[in-house]
């Protein structure tokens, strides 16, 4: 169990790190897609089946498309997919700040007394229960999210339109 988790975590973090370090934008994007798939695998591991498939569908199916379209639409020629190297000072600064945050977070997590949960039984949630939850206590939030998505769709199309309206209609 833990082994599987470690594998997933390692692969996912590694993919993310490499993606952030690569200079080829397309490779970065594809690696990130892989990373999202890894997160979906984590959800599966954690027993949140529905969330995992939603993650796959939304990120791997839709957001990745938007990202790739955006990448293609903002490059002048296929040769320029290679990014210019970023300034060293900023990279160092980023690493320092990121390392600080990482240290702080790790410190916080490790120092906290999060006892191994008493609930040994794996919690499960069926799709039906999830549906009742969404439609019951969280109905208002669901409606708001629907409105947000609609508005976003229209807004994205308007912002990006004139000639490239496709990029907006991907999140379904």
């Amino acid at each position, binding site marked *: 169990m833990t082994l599987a988790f470690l594998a997933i975590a390692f692969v996912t973090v590694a993919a993310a790190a490499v993606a952030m370090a690569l200079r080829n934008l397309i490779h970065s994007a594809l690696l990130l897609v892989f990373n999202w798939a890894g997160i979906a695998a984590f959800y599966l591991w954690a027993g949140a089946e529905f969330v995992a498939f939603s993650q796959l569908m939304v990120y791997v199916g839709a957001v990745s498309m938007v990202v790739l379209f955006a990448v293609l639409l903002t490059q002048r020629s296929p040769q320029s997919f290679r990014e210019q190297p970023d300034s060293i000072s900023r990279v160092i600064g*980023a690493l320092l*700040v990121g390392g*600080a945050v990482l240290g*702080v*977070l790790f410190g916080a997590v490790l120092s906290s007394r999060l006892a191994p949960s008493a609930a040994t039984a794996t919690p499960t949630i069926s799709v039906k229960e999830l549906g009742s939850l969404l439609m019951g206590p969280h109905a208002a939030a669901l409606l708001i999210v629907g409105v947000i998505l609609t508005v976003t769709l229209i807004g994205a199309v308007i912002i990006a339109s004139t000639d490239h309206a496709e990029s907006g209609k991907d999140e379904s």
Partner: protein
Amino acid sequence: MNLSVQYLWLIPALPLLAAGIGALTPRSGKAIAAGATIGAMGLAFVLSCGALVTALKDPAAHLVANFTWFELGHSAVRLGWLLDPLTALMCVMVTFVGLLIFIFSTGYMHEDANFTRFFCFLSLFAAAMLGILIANSLLLLFISWELVGLASYLLIGFWFHKPAAAAAAKKAFITTRIGDLGFLLGMLWLSDATGSLLFYDAGKGVLETSALTALVTQTTVGGLAVSTAIGLLLFCGAAGKSGQFPLHVWLPDAMEGPTPVSALIHAATMVAAGVFLIARVYPLMSADQAIATAPLHALSVVAAIGAITALLGAVIAVAQNDIKRILAFSTVSQLGYMMLALGVGSWVAAIFHLLTHAFFKALLFLAAGSVIHAAHHEQDIRQLGGLKGPLKVTFATFAIGMMALAGVPFVFSGFWSKEAILHAAHGWNVSHLPFYAGLVAVVLTAFYMTRLVAEAFFGQARSPASEHAHESPAVMTVPLVLLAICAVLLGFLGTPYWPWLQHTLDPKFHSEPGGGGLMVTSIVLVALGIGSGWAVYGRRLRAKASAPDPIEAKVPDLFAALAARLGFDELYAATVGRLNTFLADAADVFDRYIWDGAVRLLAGLGQFTGNVTRETDENLVNGGFDATSEQLKSTAKTYSRAQTGDTHGYLMLVALGFVLLVLAVMLGGTR
């Protein structure tokens, strides 16, 4: 069926509604626009008949319905409706003639692209005209009066792409505006003198005894009674609208508009508004008759102007070639007759002639329109000829109209109404000159109408347009026939033997005796006119379009002068126009150097004062504020430097802040 005075406003409101509908109808909605207009007019006609029934119950009464429009401090501006036989008869006439002309227009304007616009304007005009008729307030009358002017402007310039039409529209508008200035001044004076503009208001109206007495007793410059002065000013407006002598120049040019417009506005209704106005305020106009010592009676001026106009119009009409121009000058002449009648004290005869004239002149114009329509928009009578054959109905109706206008005895209405006027003029004790002018005009009228008919309908066709002439559709001929019937029958309402109309309009009317000899004289004169016209034009019919006119051959100078309308247009251009330019220049110079200098001087003074204040302000008062705001600004600038626009930087700061927060919580916080 009768219509109470409270609902009188429905009569103009219906055409106004139709105008709104017409304005909102798209161009393709010809049926909607025409249907709305004609339907509204038909309903208005029915309502007018109802109003007539109501009015005839007591011809002497002036039924009024007044209300307050708005209040201005202590005084209130009040408007109202007025219903008496004059209003009712005019309403019936206007709606009936208007209805027929609208029906005629559907045929005449059928090809026009702006059909709906035309009907919208027609409705607007009808609404405004009816508004004049029912007004019980000089102000309401004036508003409607100006609306009529607007509609007239729009309709004369309906074919605004023709430069002549645009110019004519402008000319008509400006010329009538000159008269309206007088009207406005008169109205303001009246309002100032009496404090009211209502005609009849339970004893407080301006046409009622108390106000009139007050007006007559006051005098103003030159010893004129105030009522005389106001009456003359109002007459200016009437003269402008009715095309009286000095302001008659716009009327012939207004014939540039579509023929139904000429018929409706510039023959039957609008030009009659001036006559109507004088008839309406007749008590005011005639008030000064009581003072025998007055240097000038308002009605004398009216009579003089009317006589001059009647003669002038008739003379000029002799030498015109355009069929509509001839009719236009004849209108001028006939309006002169009406003014003459008003001036000599017989407003009833004027209204009688107004009514008959409306019918037969509308008939003549519509028939002329039918001729023009048939002859492919050829208006020059020299180019026409021989239309008697193809246009049988038109010819018959035109002939009836012509005989009515010429005053052919006994059968035709024009004879009786003209007879009434001549009778009144004969009886005028001030002067007989108007009477003689009227007699000459009778001869000339008969003469030029004979000329017109002979040239246009007899002989052979003198141009391809008239050769291919064909009778107009029924929608145009049926109104002609109806008008022709009315043109004949209407005269019998006011014969000296059964003066129904006169009694209805003026219950105090009593016919003067001794009309017989006069009647014989006028019959002889009419015969003389027609005979001489036929002798000159009928016997030797014109063979070619380019052949000179017989009179032109005899006395070319006179004919040329007449054809040029006695040079009134040139005269105005040379005098009024030049004077206007000169005055404008003078005003400009005056303005630029004298007033401007004064103003600049003042401005300089003001500036100086301002400078002084400003210096004080800036240095003394503002100094403190300025320093404070400078401080604020610089502080803000310092802060805004933090807004580097560097997103990475913001993110980094957020992250660092987060780290610091967590560290603070972890190290120093209590858990």
